[in-house]
């Protein structure tokens, strides 16, 4: 394959997926710098992959490799971070997951939605993000997370149920305990 062609393909993939992947990786590893390293590695791997094999499933491939690299990163990292990898991998609950940006001006609904998301296990958060933030199909999400398609359905459903319940609550009932955590948000901006 000609070099220009390869570069054009790569550049287009970078333009389309660079930021979504960094967003995804940031959620997974909790640190934008590490997330960038993960994503750079993903694209370097893309260079080695067979384009014919990867192109039809590019999004799935990129998110899958990003997730794997992120899990590797967490496993290699400190003990505290390692529990995140276990949570992602072992489908265990994670109470203190980063949930995304939060600003003072954010509408209540959005804040409540993120709060509700933050209270879900890491595994539930992940499938919701892949679906709602990146628009991936259930089949793609299943491939990325290593779950069955129906398991993905169950998780998304449970997540949405919790979300609906939270959004149905009056704003005044927002648990005060969530407030301190706001300081740790915002890593993915």
């Amino acid at each position, binding site marked *: *394959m*000609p*070099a220009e062609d*390869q*570069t054009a393909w*790569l*550049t287009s993939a*970078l333009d389309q997926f*660079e*930021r*979504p992947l*960094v*967003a*995804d990786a*940031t959620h997974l590893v909790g640190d*934008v710098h*590490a*997330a*960038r390293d*993960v*994503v*750079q*590695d993903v694209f*370097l*791997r893309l*260079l*080695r*992959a*067979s*384009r014919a*094999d990867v192109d039809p499933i590019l999004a799935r*491939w990129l998110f*899958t490799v990003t997730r*794997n*690299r992120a899990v*590797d*990163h967490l*496993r*290699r990292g400190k003990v505290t971070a390692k529990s995140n990898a276990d949570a992602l*991998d072992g489908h265990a609950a994670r109470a203190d997951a980063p949930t*995304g*940006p939060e600003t003072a001006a954010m509408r209540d609904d*959005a*804040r409540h939605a*993120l709060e509700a*998301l933050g209270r879900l296990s890491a595994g539930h958060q992940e499938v919701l*993000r892949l679906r*709602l*933030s990146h628009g991936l199909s259930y089949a793609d999400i299943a491939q990325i997370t290593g779950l069955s398609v*129906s398991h993905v*359905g*169950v998780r998304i*459903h449970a997540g*949405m*149920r919790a*979300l*609906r*319940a939270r959004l*149905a609550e009056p704003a005044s009932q927002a648990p005060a305990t969530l407030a301190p955590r706001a300081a740790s948000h915002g890593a993915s*901006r």
Partner: protein
Amino acid sequence: MTRPAPTGPTGPTGPTGSTGSTGSRPLGPDDPQLTAYALDALDAPDRARIEAALAADPALRAIVDETRAAAATLSAALPRDGAALTALQRQAIVLRSNARPGGLGRWTPFGIGATAAAVILLALDLRAHTTEKRALGLITGGTRPPDVGQFSPTMSPLAVDGSPVSTPYGPTVGRIDGAAATVLEYRAFRLATKDQAPGVGSAPEGRAVVSPRTTPALQTVDEALKVSPPGAREVNEVVERLLALIGDRHALVTEPNADGEAYAVVEASPFLRVADARLSTFSIDVDTASYANVRRMLTAGQRPPAAAVRVEEFLNYFPYEDPAPTGPDPFAVHLEVTECPWDGAHRLVRVGIQGRPLERKARPPMNLVFLVDVSGSMNAPNKLPLVQASLRMLLEELNERDSVAIVVYAGASGLALAPTWCEQKAVIQQAIDALRPGGSTNGAAGIELAYEIATQRFVKDGVNRVVLATDGDFNVGVTSQDALHALIRAKAKSGVFLTCLGYGMGNLKDATLERLADQGNGNYGYIDSTREARKVLVDEASGTLVTIAKDVKLQVEFNPATVASYRLIGYDNRRLADRDFADDTKDAGEVGAGHRVTALYEVVPVGAPEGTAPAPTGEEPLRYGARPASPPVSPGGLIAIDLLARELLTVKVRWKEPAGAVSVKREFPLVDGGASYGKASRDFQFAASVAGFAMWLRGSPSAARITLDAVAAWASEGLSFDPGGYRAEFVDLLAKAKSLPR
């Protein structure tokens, strides 16, 4: 838009859907299909079924609406995009796609397929989320999962049925094939049956694992085992000997010590009878890292593991007085023979090679790409800061004709300094100062990027080199060791060579670095202090960086009329097959400007007690007749024949010019004048002392009679020549070794 929602199942209100196919069951409010419908994730038949249910049940309709609203809210709150990559990161990626269309080509994981899979499977050190079954599927030819890179190259041998072979040392083995695989298979068998008497076992007993031609001393494993009865340790050692004889340097087995440092275990060679092996062939080696590394351990009060002691690297550490060449050849060869200090009946031969020094002004322009490991493990005073100090020192030696780039590698790789001419020293200085440790090691990706950059700024007739500075911890990597070696070999052919600098203590992967440098036509130094940095990078910068001869091979032909048996001291992992000497396609070591190479042979003259040499076996005819006492009469004249008969040996050297493809050969005969040790030159005496120390540290059988006091006495004469004070330091080191607890 947010109305009170159903509070979830208060009982079995419906299937919570462990499968997606709800069939014709009635749709409940807690059916995952309902959510999937709301999120537009269903295909047409399912959608129609749900829509029918919704039309009949307004409550379900409400749930769908709520779900959609909640999804929209969350979707809006969740940013799709994160941060962009940094400009450097993006640049590194695009640069790679420019330079290598299609990447490394068809990804062949670990070079499997050709030979290895049939005999031995390699277990991969898997990331925890990958099942072993998947990995084995990969090896045996299954389709490649998208993320093959998640497998680390660290491999352990597997028996044919796929179960791991357990060995007492937990060896790490690279690609194995052919005879080496059989050897490992044999080891597995031996270790499994080690409690039985030899001969009890069944399968591989007596199998010839290598041809007699390549292993004159050990023709079958069992013959080897007669020499050393098969305890676990002994089996392991025999295997190392066989592997060394087979010459499969990829299959070195490493033995980690308590600190996790890994050293290739290569057993020293035994005495060989001239009748069996007239020729001794090896690749020269100018590395010196072993000495610096051992010095570090001894200074810290530790006994170095035997495998960390490489005699040739001890010998080559020190400056000698050998005169530089005066003719056109890139190096001069000096031979000397005297009494062997540790066995008066034996003779010791020193082969000294002195490379042509290069005037600093005369050196060619340099295109250097520093590849600096900035992973978390480099965060120690004797690692990254020392790397920075080394680079600053080297920078002082460079001028406007030279170019420097810096690539860092950690969790990901990046260009820390684009190629910069050395007239802009402040810019380079800044980039050096800005290096910070953090992340984990991904050495392979960094090496690839560094080579890309070096190739882009290739200086014809100049020095084009990637200088890798690391603690050698390549455990967390992208590629297999084989793919990495293949890349480095390919790049070396293009003229970009590799220098490896090992830093720090604790997890220095000595064997990895030496092999990397070896693949890249390069050299390897261990840097433990600013002093050592100055020696390697400044005092010897011209030598470390400017190659004056490549693929330098030595072959010694012994005269059966005067020599009964011999052994080469050191160079245990540098042995070549005799036929490779004249084969210009076979790679060998490089000599840099001003480098010196010293090799020692311990020779048992005809008529001397055999010592530890093997007893004669069989009645094989010698090529020049079994009676050297009656030389054939020839018209050429008796005097010439007499001289020939008195020759001890002939050293033949082959090398190529740095850019050449065809080798040049020179021959240097040596006649033994019968000198005693006291008559030997200062260099000879000092080299003998260094070799004696190394053998003592290795605990080799030949060293049984060597004491440290004797070693110190042998060195005394040589101390009068000591530029740089390295020989005096050696004597200090002897004292430190002596104070070690036995």
